[in-house]
């Protein structure tokens, strides 16, 4: 469980992450045109694969 106290830094992080996610969502929907949608799709998948392949310390708890 995460029980980190609320902080301005964390709030800014949440807002930035939301904006980042909303931007990706719109780009994938083609709002910025087809080439931007293709680039956004490739970027998103690359980012997901990169994060997925990072070692998860939580797995070692088992």
């Amino acid at each position, binding site marked *: *469980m995460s029980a980190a106290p609320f902080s301005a830094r964390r709030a800014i992080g949440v807002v930035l992450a939301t904006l980042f996610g909303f931007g*990706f*969502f719109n780009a*994938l929907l083609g709002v910025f045109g087809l080439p931007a949608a293709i680039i956004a799709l490739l970027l998103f*998948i690359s980012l997901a694969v990169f994060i997925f392949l990072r070692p*998860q310390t939580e797995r070692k708890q088992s």
Partner: protein
Amino acid sequence: MKLDPEVLARVQFAFTVTFHIIFPTMSIGLAAFLMVIEGLWLKTKDPVYLEIYRFWMGIFAMGFGVGVVTGIVLSFEFGLGFAKFAQIAGPAIGPSIGLEVLTAFFLEAGFLGIMLFGLKRVGPKLHFFATCMVALGTQISASWILSANSWMQTPDGITIENGRVVVTNWLRVIHNPSWLVRLPHMLMAAFITGSFFVAGVGAWYLLCGKHENFGRRTVSLGLGFATVAVACQLFVGDLLYGRMLHYQPSKMQAAEGFWEEKSASPAPYNWIIVPDQANQRNRFTLATPVLGSLWLTHSLRGRVAGLKNTPRDLQPTMGMVFYGFHVMFTMAILMFFMVAVSLWLRVQKRLFSTRWFLRSLVIMTPAGFIATIAGWYTAETGRQPWVIWGILRTADAVSPVPGGAMLSTLIAFVVIYALFITAFLIFAFRMIRRGPEDAPDHAEASGSLMNALRTQVMDHAATAHPGEGR
């Protein structure tokens, strides 16, 4: 009371196809998942992958069986409820359905036995090959069915002679204008459905504090697949939106809930409407300003075309199309939110310990099924009043069958399918409650339904194979 055969035929087909689509969607998604899992097991020899494979193979087998049985019923329903459609469109639709049997069913039937019963009877590579062939079969099956349905949405490669469809170009019948966009849309929907199903069950184990290795791995893999598939789905969904706007403008006009020929500029995005079809207006609208222009026209000031652009007698019922589309799209937004948060939690190394997220994943377990059904409602109700777009109206396609006969078969379908879904849910929940450690190496015959329903049989099966394959 006068029974309208057209309404009853449509309700019957809607009911049976809604029930049916749950299972092939699950089969396509789980078959691909099993293929990847078995590949990972062969590569790493990690026993957790084998445990995941054995567990999900059981649920896949049940879903596959129900999917085949309920799919066959649909072919018969063409004759029962829509004989005129079958008579007129048979030359174009029939071969696609026949080829589905010839290519996909034969492939699946040939390898399903090895997949289900052969884990300890054939070599691991042959078994993996069988799993791959079953997964390929489910996708080939989807290709043919999507080709046939897409032809009904965007017919091509035919002429009409003496009131019947005559094929002039087979390639264009199969490769009709919407097929190559609708097919990936459906396949992605199936992958997403399977991924959220798998991740939801894994999250439930983590919340319960049992089978934690299994739970972590399935949550991780399920969300990994879902992340890629949801992103691809948003991309493909927008391509399909553009294609449908070109070929079936009335469907998309109804899907967005606008009536006027041109909306205001900038257009709002409608979330909830109470449409009044008779007066061609909305009684109530809940909308977000500007978002309609942004999402639907990809500009800040674009106007959206409304349903008044389509003559009244050619308009679909707005409420059904609108809510079908919006349930699907809302699910897509929620699923994107979930996968985006999962990436963040993965970076934070809190993916398996954030309980609110795991609870949300459990709640989202059926999200893919709901989105898929809603998407099909959009596709089918949005095509009305046509059964074959621009060629044959649904009202003209109905069989000359008395309403009473149609009602009695509808009741029979409801009763039989209620038994199917009850049995499926009982066995699926029992398998999930029992957990992966007791999953058998292969499908087991219990002798009778009564035996199968007895818990003792399950317990016996669990104790008969202690630790095998692990």
